[in-house]
């Protein structure tokens, strides 16, 4: 395995690391829940990779994500906005409007035809419009997060959740369940509440088609469907939506290797 550069994305819930070859293709990746001591966790990642391919001393590493400044091993850090845009552009080969829904924040990035960021918006103040919104709701409804989307899509009707605030939505769920409303329509309503929040961000930057999705949350099929409904656009998802930040970081690292 030829490795020319490494990228690491320290998110609020998971750490993702990828390696790319000289052509910028993803050749290795690793993902696990974020540990409190990020630097030690990165050492473990590097040891795992080193055991496979030998010394990594000369291979440049760029860090991104919420905890990027904690990665002492990185030669450089870049914001997740730039890295996600870079990763998705490389993976899909065109610009558009990228929605990235992460565990703790969500972002909308307009990427130009040559991969340049033209504008962006970020929701980083509260859990509304982020993965945390679904996680909280899943916990309240005792449904595994990974199954939420599939269960929601079995709904034959949808119940409107009026609140996009995670705390208020939880109260709404409790009261709906107490009224005997079935789980599936509530779940569908929750997905729509999240997406409405993200759609407002899309409107704030101005949608430039096509619509691209990244982040762990887009593995959820109901999210993809509701985003398409709300924006009226077909959505494009890269093969590894969760790794786009780390891939972008690795691509920036590749420039350092040159």
């Amino acid at each position: 395995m030829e490795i020319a550069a490494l990228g690491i994305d320290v998110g609020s819930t998971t750490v993702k690391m990828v390696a790319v070859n000289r052509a910028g293709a993803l050749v290795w990746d690793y993902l696990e829940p974020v540990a409190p001591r990020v630097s030690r966790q990165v050492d473990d990642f590097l040891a795992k990779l080193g055991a496979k391919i030998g010394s990594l001393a000369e291979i440049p590493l760029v860090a991104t994500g919420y905890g990027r400044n904690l990665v002492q091993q990185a030669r450089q850090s870049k914001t997740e906005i730039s890295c996600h845009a870079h990763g998705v552009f490389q993976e899909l080969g065109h610009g558009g409007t990228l929605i990235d829904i992460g565990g703790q924040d969500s972002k909308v990035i307009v990427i130009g035809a040559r991969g340049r960021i033209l504008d962006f918006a970020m929701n980083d103040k509260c859990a509304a419009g982020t993965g945390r919104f679904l996680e909280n709701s899943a916990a309240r409804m005792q449904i595994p997060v990974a199954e939420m989307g599939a269960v929601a899509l079995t709904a034959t009707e949808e119940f409107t959740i009026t609140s996009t605030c995670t705390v208020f939505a939880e109260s709404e769920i409790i009261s709906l369940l107490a009224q005997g409303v079935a789980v599936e329509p509530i779940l569908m309503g929750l997905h729509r509440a999240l997406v409405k929040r993200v759609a407002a961000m899309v409107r704030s930057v101005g949608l430039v088609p096509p619509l691209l999705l990244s982040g762990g949350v887009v593995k959820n099929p109901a999210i993809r469907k509701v985003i398409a409904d709300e924006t009226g656009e077909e959505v494009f998802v890269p093969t590894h939506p969760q790794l786009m930040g780390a891939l972008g970081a690795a691509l920036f690292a590749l420039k350092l290797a040159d």
Partner: protein
Amino acid sequence: MPINIPQRKAVIQDIKSRGGMVAAVLPIHYPRALLRAFNIFPVEVWGPPRVDVSLGGSQLQSYVCAIVQNALSFIKMGALEIADLILIPHTCDSLQGLTSLLIDMVKPPSPVFPLYLPRGRREEDVIFLAEELQSLYAGLAELTGRRPTDAELLAAIAREELCDQLSGRLYEQRQTLGLGNLDFYRLLRSREYLPAEEFAALAESALAVEAAPLPGTPLLLSGILPEPMMVLDLIEEMKGLVVADDFAGCGRRLYRPGLSPEPFRRLAESLVAAPPDPTRGNAIGDRVQFLVEMAAKTYARGVIFYEVKFCEPELFDLPELRAALKERGLVSLHIEVDINNPLPQQTATRIGAFLEMLNH
């Protein structure tokens, strides 16, 4: 070059020890010279930040901005008792509400003077403001027992006009003063409490330096005030350089001198002709033009709107303003801050991403 700026507290004590009076002045526009002609020294109260807001919070809605919440708390703590008067320009509904609260309910020991500002730049606005200034003069005369002559008023006006001119030159020479973002704004903002003579001396010594141009991606900032000020260091760490601003407390107070030889009218002309400001009802188109021209003149590549949370006049216009700037090719970033808290990591990410975007 670090600049040695006297501390606000020491300045107030010095004024008092020399028999001067102190006016606590709330944001934004007011006639400095008129106060000085009465030997009253304005000390501005922009909040202040990091005050325990629980005292003020009990009488204000939670969606009132922190400048007003803090000011009320500060007054209720007794911290403004050193002031001989409180002047509150009618900048926005929140400040007007504060004036009523103080006059009708809180009744602080120092008298409260409201100042009504016109919402336009027409001849009638100049006339209205000149009359307002005359009634402020009458109120101050009653308070102090003094009646400054026209010559005294004009002398005070000349001192402040010199400071306005020096502030303008600081902006013009911004990139060769050798001052980082934070030092530049500490210097500019010292005029919030320094007497004109002291500010002029500081500004002149700063202007005497001719340093190599500072590196960094040129940026404009806009909003009410650069508070928390740590944003300035943060921008510098991320290799950005604030080259000019449209802050209500800084760039929007670069007043040009009035034309009239009559003091009240001259003051009014100067205030009315100040750069466009949403708190004075100026049209969005004027602000767009002003910002686009400022960016062209300073080679700024983008604007960061660094806004005080819940500031209604600023936030109301912002979506339309940003969209219009975008159409004119000037990209912007919007950050809302709580002046009482340190900046969150997310703010650093947004600013970092914005600079990366500008440099791509």
